[in-house]
């Protein structure tokens, strides 16, 4: 692990993330313009979707895809239940915030997945293209379980207040949120267009990918560290859990992947998906469907602690575990 771990810390992608964190910690006025950051997140989802789709167009669809998708969906739906219980007992959160935070940990972080893809490729454990479908499928179930868990904490009033109109909006937000639409949409476009069609747009969506990822991680480093600095709601207990969850969930996912007979790259990818916590799709859904929850808690945990932990250590650890477990 030594050599490959070193490679991580000389990769521009990681170094820009560290630069962002240092700049924000030192209170530099550096900031990436908001609309540009948003555009980069859209670009990254499209690029990852397209590349996954094209890979599937090449490799064809096999039974392992179905297995992986079902496993991912179940993990995404189930993880929030145990996470919420621990958040209430150990983290001392009430039901609403526990449910909201749990949704983040059941769901996934696209950028963690993407960064893992870069790092695993350097370590000769490439993530197969169909894992993008698993990524897309894992976004949503956790939102449902998180909302189920959180609603227990709402007064009857607040629960029944939703008009039919609002319920429609909620369903749209959960199933048609921008991340899901972009990932699944461009995955399908990748399948339809295939390697031939993809080649025309490859310079933008493939060749340019790592450079944009650097800029995006610079911004995420800035946002993560600034939020940590300004956070009021984050306790030491919660900070501890924000490191414990990725370790436990990452191990869980990797072990299940290996048990199901996945190749090392896929097992590590499933582990990383479980370990990662959403900070794009789930916050969007929570703002809409659960305005009572405190974003100061769920974003400080997922973006400011779990995300950097995964980028800097989690991915490396899970890759190592997958290699060991598959005897690689």
């Amino acid at each position: 692990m030594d050599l490959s771990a070193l490679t991580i810390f000389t990769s521009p992608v990681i170094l820009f993330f560290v630069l962002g964190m240092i700049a924000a910690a030192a209170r530099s006025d550096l900031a990436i313009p908001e609309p540009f950051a948003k555009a980069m997140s859209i670009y990254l989802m499209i690029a990852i979707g397209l590349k996954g789709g094209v890979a599937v167009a090449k490799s064809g669809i096999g039974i392992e895809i179905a297995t992986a998708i079902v496993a991912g969906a179940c993990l995404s739906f189930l993880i929030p239940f145990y996470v919420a219980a621990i958040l209430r007992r150990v983290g001392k959160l009430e039901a609403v915030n526990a449910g909201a935070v749990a949704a983040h940990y059941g769901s996934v972080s696209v950028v963690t997945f993407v960064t893992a893809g870069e790092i695993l490729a350097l370590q000769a454990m490439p993530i197969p293209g169909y894992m993008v479908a698993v990524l897309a499928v894992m976004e949503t179930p956790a939102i449902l379980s998180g909302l189920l868990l959180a609603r227990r904490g709402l007064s009857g009033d607040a629960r029944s207040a939703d008009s039919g109109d609002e319920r429609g909006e909620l369903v749209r937000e959960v199933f048609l949120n921008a991340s899901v639409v972009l990932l699944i949409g461009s995955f399908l476009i990748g399948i339809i267009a295939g390697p031939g069609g993809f080649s025309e747009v490859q310079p933008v969506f493939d060749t340019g990918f790592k450079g944009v990822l650097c800029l995006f991680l610079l911004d995420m480093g800035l946002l993560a560290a600034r939020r940590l600095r300004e956070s009021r709601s984050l306790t030491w207990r919660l900070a501890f859990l924000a490191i414990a969850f990725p370790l436990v969930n990452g191990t869980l996912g990797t072990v299940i992947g290996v048990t199901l007979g996945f190749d090392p790259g896929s097992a590590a990818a499933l582990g990383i998906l479980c370990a990662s916590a959403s900070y794009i799709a789930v916050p969007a859904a929570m703002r809409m469907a659960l305005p009572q929850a405190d974003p100061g808690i769920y974003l400080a945990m997922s973006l400011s602690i779990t995300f950097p932990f995964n980028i800097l250590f989690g991915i490396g650890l899970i890759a190592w575990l997958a290699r060991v477990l598959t005897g690689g």
Partner: protein
Amino acid sequence: MVETVIRKRIEILADTAQVRRVTSAIDSAGITGWTILPVSAGKGRDGLWHEEHVTSTDKSLVLTVASQDRAAALAAALAPLLSSHGLLLTMWDVEVIRGDRF
């Protein structure tokens, strides 16, 4: 001198994700229109926030001009949400031209 009439101007600060809820309430109160302004940062009891579209951390200011009656109806409709949904509502009298529009 142009003739002016007095109407209420109401401004509601809300999470952008909650804006549709606010504008539905405006529509339900029978008010003819509304306008949304972007907001870039703020501080309240819940601490500091800065506009971050990636994490959906953004608020908007909804501005509407209405007759006294409709303004009161709107305030009443939104009052229960103020705390739980983190809304901030201010209202005051303004002069408008061609007040029949509101």
